[in-house]
């Protein structure tokens, strides 16, 4: 079937740029994985510590400073510092190393799942074959990877809470681990999943229509 003009040239240029970006991220990710493992492994072996960074909310507001550059439209303005980053150097126990590995594997799995399917979809656009059942399946996997982002961040949040309670006595009097759970990602993932299901149904109807004369 002749599909040369299926995607306009201007859109194809955008697809090519996006394809190049996703290809770069895809290959950079695979180069960075062994690099990160080597750096962390080296630090654990030589220094005998793991650096852990946890985004926290400070229970008692530290400061409330007036904003000097206030203009006439506002009556008063002051900045309150109640969020921060807690840097903890952990002794590398089996438990900490396991947590680190599980976090890393979960995040990388989602990233690889997302990037793999995005690249495949963009490649099919470049080949002028965007409407296929494979692409609807890939779109479904992208939706799932976006949905999975939420539970993975929830697991990371629980790991951070665990590390905080394991490292600091009575931490809740001073810090709370900042929640990074984003319901927007869940909604976005569900929308992508539903759209992929609609496309899939459309493909089935089209296929059935083709088999009728």
């Amino acid at each position: 079937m002749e599909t040369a003009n299926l995607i306009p040239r201007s859109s194809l240029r955008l697809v090519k740029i996006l394809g190049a970006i996703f290809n770069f991220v895809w290959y950079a990710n695979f180069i960075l994985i062994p690099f990160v493992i080597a750096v962390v492994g080296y630090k654990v072996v030589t220094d005998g510590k793991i650096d852990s960074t946890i985004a926290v909310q400070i229970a008692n507001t530290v400061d409330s400073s007036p904003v000097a550059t206030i203009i006439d439209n506002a009556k008063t303005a002051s900045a309150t510092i109640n969020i921060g980053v807690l840097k903890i150097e952990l002794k590398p126990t089996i438990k900490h190393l396991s947590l680190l590995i599980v976090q890393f594997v979960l995040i990388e799995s989602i990233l690889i799942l997302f990037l793999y399917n995005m690249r495949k979809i963009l490649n099919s656009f470049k080949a002028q074959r965007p409407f296929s059942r494979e692409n609807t399946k890939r779109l479904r996997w992208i939706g799932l990877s976006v949905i999975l982002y939420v539970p993975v961040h929830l697991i990371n949040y629980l790991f951070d809470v665990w590390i905080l309670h394991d490292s600091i006595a009575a931490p809740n009097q001073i810090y709370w681990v900042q929640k990074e759970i984003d319901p927007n990602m869940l909604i976005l993932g569900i929308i992508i999943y539903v759209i992929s299901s609609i496309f899939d149904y459309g493909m089935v109807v089209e296929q059935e229509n083709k088999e009728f004369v």
Partner: protein
Amino acid sequence: MAIIVNLDVQMAKRKMSLTELAERLDMSMTNLSLLKNGKVKGIRFDTLNALCAVLECNPGDLLSYVPDSEGGV
């Protein structure tokens, strides 16, 4: 499938070629060939109507039911 398309029989009776039938039906040779060889899942009433009109026959002359050896539906 248990439904057999007897298009070739009716075409032979009328001494009509596939090309001529395709032209008169305003249908592609590919689709007509698929229909003749029973490679389609279904036929639209529009197509059946046009076929009956051109070949001067009834739908029953074009289609016949032969049960499968397994006896399934």
